[in-house]
C-alpha cells in the first residue's frame, strides 16, 4: 500500500513546474497573437472538464504567493462552482482571496466581466467551454483553423445577416463574436453581450483557457476588441427597464429572481461585489434596505 501513502503531495498551485512553463509559453504566444487560439497540452485536473479546467490551469500557471485571487461565476463570488475553485486555490496555493474586484490581482470568471472597471496590472482569466467562434457553423477543427488562417469570416457575417433577415435582430445574446486587433475573430466565452464593450481597450490583461478543447487565447491590455455588426444594424447591448431592486443601479447587468408563483419578479445585480459596494456607499433600490 506504499503507493497510497504517497498520493497527497502536490506542487504549489497543483501543477508541476514543467507543466506551468508549458502553459506560460502558450500564454505568451497567445498574447503575441491577440485572439489566436494556441493549442496547449491541457492536463487532467481534479475537477471535471467543462467546469473551468482551462481557467484553473491558466490561473495555476500565473499565480504567485503574493497574488490576491477573486473567483466569480455568473458575476457572483458565492455560486457553488466559484466557491469550489476559490477553495481549491486556497488549498493548493495558500493564496489570499478576496471578493473585491479592486483588490484582486487575478480574477477568474465564468460568464461575466465585473462591472467595476479593471485597472492596469490586473489579469482577468476566463473559463471557456468552446473556444472556436466558428464551431457551430463548421464542426471540423481542420476546416475552422484554415478559415482563421485565411481570415475567411464570411460565414459568420452570413449567419448574423440571416438572424436579422429571420428575426429582425442578431439573435446572439451571449458568446457574441468579436474581432480582436482587426484580425482574429474570437469567442469572448459565454459572457452576455452586455459585457462585450468592457473588453475593448481594457487596461487589464485578458486570458482565456479552454481545458477540454486544449486552447489558450488572449487579449493584451489596451487592444481593440470589436463586436461584429453591420453599418445599418450596429451592435447594441441589453438594457433593463428597471433598476437593481437592492442597490438601484441602472447600468449593471441584472439577474431575474422569481419571487412567487403569481408572476412576481425582481431584478438584482448579477455582480454581487458591485451591488454590495453600492449599498455600502448608500445607494438603495426600490426593495433594498439602507446598509
Amino acid at each position, binding site marked *: 500500500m506504499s503507493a497510497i501513502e504517497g498520493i497527497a503531495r502536490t506542487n504549489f498551485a497543483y501543477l508541476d513546474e514543467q507543466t506551468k512553463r508549458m502553459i506560460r509559453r502558450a500564454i505568451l504566444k497567445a498574447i503575441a497573437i491577440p485572439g489566436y487560439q494556441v493549442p496547449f497540452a491541457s492536463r487532467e*485536473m481534479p475537477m471535471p472538464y*467543462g467546469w473551468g479546467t482551462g481557467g484553473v490551469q491558466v490561473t495555476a500557471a500565473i499565480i504567485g504567493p503574493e497574488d490576491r485571487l477573486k473567483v466569480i461565476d*455568473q458575476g457572483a463570488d*458565492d455560486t457553488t462552482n466559484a466557491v469550489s475553485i476559490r477553495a481549491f486555490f486556497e488549498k493548493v496555493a495558500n493564496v489570499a482571496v478576496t471578493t473585491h474586484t479592486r483588490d484582486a490581482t487575478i480574477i477568474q470568471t*465564468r460568464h461575466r466581466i465585473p462591472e467595476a472597471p479593471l485597472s492596469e496590472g490586473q489579469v482577468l482569466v476566463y473559463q471557456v467551454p468552446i473556444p472556436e467562434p466558428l464551431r457551430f457553423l463548421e464542426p*471540423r477543427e481542420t476546416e475552422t483553423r484554415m478559415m482563421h488562417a485565411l481570415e475567411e469570416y464570411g460565414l459568420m457575417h452570413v449567419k448574423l445577416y440571416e438572424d436579422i433577415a429571420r428575426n429582425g435582430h442578431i439573435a446572439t445574446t451571449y458568446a457574441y463574436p468579436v474581432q480582436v486587433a482587426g484580425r482574429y475573430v474570437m469567442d469572448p466565452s459565454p459572457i452576455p453581450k452586455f459585457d462585450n464593450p468592457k473588453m475593448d481597450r481594457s487596461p487589464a490583461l485578458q486570458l482565456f483557457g479552454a481545458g477540454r478543447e486544449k486552447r489558450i487565447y488572449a487579449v493584451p491590455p489596451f487592444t481593440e476588441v470589436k463586436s461584429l455588426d453591420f453599418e445599418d444594424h450596429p451592435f447594441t447591448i*441589453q438594457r433593463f427597464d428597471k433598476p437593481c431592486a*437592492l442597490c438601484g443601479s441602472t447600468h449593471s447587468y441584472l439577474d431575474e429572481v422569481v419571487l412567487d408563483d403569481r408572476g412576481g419578479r425582481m431584478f438584482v445585480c448579477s455582480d454581487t461585489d458591485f451591488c454590495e459596494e453600492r449599498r455600502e456607499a448608500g445607494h438603495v433600490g426600490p*426593495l433594498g434596505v439602507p446598509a
Partner: protein
Amino acid sequence: MYVAVKGGETAIAEAHRLLADRRRGPRDLPALSLAQIAGQLSLAVDRVMAEASLYDPILAALAVKQARGDMIEAIFLLRAYRTTLPRLAISQPLETAAMQIERRVSATYKDLPGGQLLGPTFDYTHRLLDPDLAGEEAEPETPARRAVSGEKVMRVSDILDGEGLVEGDGSFGPDHVAGDITREPLDFPMPRDTRLQVLARGDEGFLLALAYSTQRGYGRTHPFVGEIRIGLADVEIELPELGFSVPLGRIRITECQMVNQFKGSAKEPPQFTRGYGLVFGQSERKAMAMSLVDRALRADEFGEDIVAPAQDQEFVLSHADNVQATGFVEHLKLPHYVDFQAELDLVRRMRAEYEAKRAGQAGDEDAITSEAAQ
C-alpha cells in the same frame, strides 16, 4: 425581503458530508477492503485502469470504492491522480508474442500452434443468476492448471504474414518518437500511434457502439477475429547506463488482432488488412471494439470512401473520452442564469414586436372592412 443568495460554502461542505455517509452505506455491514475490490471485482478494476491509462490495481480499487462503484467517476479519479505523476521513462514496445497466455482464441483457424485456450471467460456460461452466490459461498472447485512452458505462442498475424497474405505490422522510421496524447494537444489528421492511444483510453460503450455500427453497414470492414489473447506481458525499459533492457514487472493485457478484407490495388497485391486493439487488464469487448474502430479509421490509407461516423477521425477521436464527455455534459447543471437572462430578454422583446405587428395587421384589416362597407 429578498437578500442575495449566500451559503454556497456551507452547502458544499454539507453535501460532501452526506456523500461520505452514503458511500459508506449501512454501518452494521463491514466496509469493503481494497483487496476485496481488486480481487473480486477485478474486471471493474481492469476497466478503470484501462480508461484511466494507469496500471495499478490497488489505486484503481480505491477509485472504485471512493466512486461508490460509478465507473466513469472512478476513471476520472485515477486520471486526475495520473496527471500528477512524472514520466520517468518510455518502455520498450511490449512483446506480446512472448506473453504468458491465459486465454487465446482464433476464429480464423480451427487449430494452430500453441492451441486454442479458453481461459477465464464468460463465453458459453448460461446467463442464469446463480443463487449459490447470494449467501455464504461454497469454495469453488480448483481449476486445472498447466505448467508454464515459457514457449512463445506464435501470433496468428505472423502465420498469415508468413504467406504475405496480410499487410505487415507497419513500422515507423528510426527517428519516430511515439506521440503522447496526455502531453500534447490533439491535432488532426492524427497518425495511427496517437489514434490508438485515444482508442485505448476511450469509453468502452462508445467504442462498442461505433464498432457495432460498422458491422451493420456504416463503414463495413469484413472483420474476422484473427486472434484474441489475454495474459501477462513483461514491461521493459532500456537503461542508457547499461545499454540493454531490464524488466520492470508484468501487466495483464488483452490484445486483439482483427483481420479485415482488402481487395488490393494496382500497386499492392490482394492481401488482408488489420485492425488492432490493446487494453490493460482483461477486456475482450473493449479490445475487439477498438480493433474494429481502428480499422474503420484507416479508411483514408486504403482509399475507402469516408461515409460513416466510425471512419471519421474528428468525430470518433474528439468524442471517445468519457471523462471529457461527462464533464461537459454535466456542466449544464452549473448555473447559466446570466446567459439565460440574455435569451429571455431577447425572446420577450421579439414576442412584443410580434404582438405589436399582429395588432397592427388586425387594425389594418378593420380599416379595410369599414372602407368597403362605405
